[in-house]
């Protein structure tokens, strides 16, 4: 368990299924919950419980994000780690959209980016944002991600086509670029927790 100033990050458990279901129950799709075919899944709580119960060490683990009061605020993961080309996909879903602009979300970024670039030694992390996920996109840009382009009309939901933007962040453009990065102190946060 990682305890930050605002967030507590721990591996997700079966009992988190109800909270995870809340992340799926939104009117418009979230890019990080789409499957390989870019389709939105609509799992039941039971299915999510089974999935969370099947998590094994060595897989792309799903982490639960809690605030310091123990309320589940979201989930995060590094999905599909590709050691050959040294990249992974940054996945973070916060149940309340307003949380993307908080120190709690910043702590999650620090946790995942440190894990990817320092502990796993990867070169790049990729992320996606749908055209209506302005807060997700702003969050990614604020943390140094740059756009790789937009796939047009790739998802159909809510009666219309949606575009999907791909973004990436390279180790060389982060404080973790130096070989001594593992020993470096974690960046300080200035804003207090909400």
């Amino acid at each position, binding site marked *: 368990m990682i305890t930050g100033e605002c967030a507590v990050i721990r591996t997700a458990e079966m009992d988190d299924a109800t909270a995870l279901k809340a992340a799926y129950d939104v009117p418009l799709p979230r890019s990080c919950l789409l499957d390989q075919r870019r389709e939105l899944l609509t799992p039941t709580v039971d299915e999510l419980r089974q999935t969370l119960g099947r998590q094994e060490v060595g897989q792309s683990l799903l982490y639960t994000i809690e605030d310091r009061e123990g309320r589940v605020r979201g989930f995060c993961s590094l999905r599909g780690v590709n050691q050959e080309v040294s990249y992974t996909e940054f996945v973070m879903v916060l149940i309340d959209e307003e949380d993307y602009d908080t120190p709690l979300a910043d702590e999650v970024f620090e946790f995942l980016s440190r894990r990817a670039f320092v502990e796993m030694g990867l070169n790049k992390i990729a992320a996606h944002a749908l055209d209506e996920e302005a807060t997700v996109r702003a969050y990614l840009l604020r943390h140094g991600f740059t756009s790789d382009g937009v796939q*047009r009309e790739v998802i159909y939901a809510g009666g219309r086509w949606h575009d999907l933007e791909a973004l990436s962040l390279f180790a060389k453009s982060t404080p973790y670029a130096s070989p001594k990065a593992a020993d470096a102190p974690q960046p300080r946060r200035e804003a207090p927790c909400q």
Partner: protein
Amino acid sequence: MPVKTSVFIRRAERDDLDTVVAWMEDPDFVRFLYGDPARSPKQIRERIVSMLGRSAVQAIPGGLYLVIDSVDYGPVGLLSLQNISWRNRACCLDMFVGHEKLRGHLASAVAFYCAMEYCFHELNLHRITAYIYSFNEASWQVLEKAAAVRELVLREHVARDGQLYDMYGYGLLRSEYEAECRKHPRFVEGLMESMIEEQAKALEARQAESGQ
């Protein structure tokens, strides 16, 4: 002037197994598409058998494997439509011309046009996506000539020969394909007519052969 071609596409059959295994063992297949060069032929064979099995007679398959065939040359390549989403009406297209002499030949472009025709007018898809490595210039040029748009440049995304290369993501919408067809109606009509003729001829020839 209408274009005549001897190339057509058809569903992959079990009889194609040996040919497809040979293509997938080709180092160029691994370089330009995917796969581990250390894979054993047995593993490749098992994978193809499962691929063929998955796409067989299912009402809504998630993937389709098509052989690019030709009356003149026999099977020349493999076309796969992956991650077909019936909700998004989209798929991801991979193509490999196994017949070395025909690479960079009109056959590749014709096969790609056949695939587009099949995706948009048979499967009723809305969009085709294709990912191509930056060093595979011949392939992405075919896509650009077919009005596909380079939507993504995924930097340092694929490793080959100890080096990282970019990967391009192309997208082609049905409306763009249809606009292209309107621009070159005789080319497309001629292509489709001759494909149907050639497929019928090849079928007849093979039936006659197996009857002997």
